[in-house]
């Protein structure tokens, strides 16, 4: 049976797509699934540094597409998990070096070999976005609790639905509970109401994210981190496990949104 192909996208830049890909991929691999993460951010690659694999790159995504190497040659194995791989983006090429059809075919091939293919989408809604979503069956839209990120997320959701990618899930990243409590930040409930797509999880604003990125070791390896636990719960939901939305780990809020999640 073919694996799942998942694109992580947002519209607005810098909201946490790459962080999400790295952490979800790592958790799913820890759960013994075979996972490949594909950096589709051609020209601005980052997944390699977030995973701490920047020194090992020989070939990249564009090399595979152009037939300069076999896809196995471009895959980097994770330092800790031997069933986790990344395919880095090309750093010195343009987004139009790749066609959506080619991405679709590559994702199809990868899904034959891996349980999960997770695609790190670039910001924006142009060519890079179209390439990144072309081969995906499931989309995760990441937003932060800010007006501009939410507006862009809504636009992206519209484009995904128009491209017939309708299995869409929402992650709210960088939620600051203290501010929500004071009423000075939109709550998860507000955001789910506005965007009306099912919630996959909520990640709190956390210094741990910056620290783990500095080290090039995904947060989920660190047991104590709340943001890390939030990503574990998100990945578990993607894995079909039923995880309630109601404790203090970063996604506690109204019961009634449970039904919005169709795992």
């Amino acid at each position, binding site marked *: 049976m073919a694996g799942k192909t998942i694109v992580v996208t947002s519209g607005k830049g810098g909201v946490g797509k790459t962080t999400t890909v790295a952490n979800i991929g790592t958790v799913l691999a820890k759960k013994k699934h075979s996972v490949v993460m594909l950096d589709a951010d051609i020209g601005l690659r980052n997944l390699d540094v977030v995973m701490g694999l920047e020194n090992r790159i020989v070939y990249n995504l564009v090399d595979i597409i152009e037939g300069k190497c076999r896809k196995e040659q471009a895959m980097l194995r994770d330092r800790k998990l031997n069933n986790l791989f990344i395919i880095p983006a090309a750093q010195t090429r343009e987004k139009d070096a790749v066609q959506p059809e080619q991405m679709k075919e590559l994702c199809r091939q990868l899904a034959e070999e891996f349980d999960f293919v997770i695609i790190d989408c670039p910001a924006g809604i142009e060519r890079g976005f179209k390439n990144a979503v072309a081969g995906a069956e499931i989309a995760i839209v990441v937003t932060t609790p800010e*007006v501009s990120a939410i*507006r862009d997320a809504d636009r992206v959701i*519209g484009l995904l639905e128009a491209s017939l990618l309708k299995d869409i899930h929402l992650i709210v990243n960088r939620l600051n509970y203290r501010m929500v409590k004071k*009423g000075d930040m*939109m709550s998860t409930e507000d955001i789910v109401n*506005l965007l009306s797509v099912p919630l996959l999880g909520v990640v709190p604003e956390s210094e741990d994210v910056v620290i783990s990125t500095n080290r090039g070791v995904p947060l989920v390896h660190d047991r104590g981190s709340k943001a890390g636990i939030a990503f574990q719960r998100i990945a578990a939901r993607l894995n079909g496990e039923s995880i309630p939305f109601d404790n203090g780990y970063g996604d506690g809020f109204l019961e009634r949104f449970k039904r919005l999640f169709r795992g």
Partner: protein
Amino acid sequence: MLNAIRRFFGEKASGKVAAKRMQVVLMHDRMDLTPDVLECLKNDILSVLSRYMEIDQQSIRVDLEKGKEYTALVSNVHIKRVYRRALPAQNA
């Protein structure tokens, strides 16, 4: 502190303000009603109404209103007088 004072004087929490604003923004975005389109719509409404009544051209307002289960297009126009018979339709 400043926020607490503002709140004391009845200002809404900024989170709620944002949610409310986004509700309107997203509705406009989704309906693809750009300012140009809205302007065209206003002019068309005016030209139709003008066949039947004299209108205060400056008074027209077109807004989207969201109820629980519907979105309404609400237009408000000041009428100066109503004609006895409709004028012929202008250029199509």
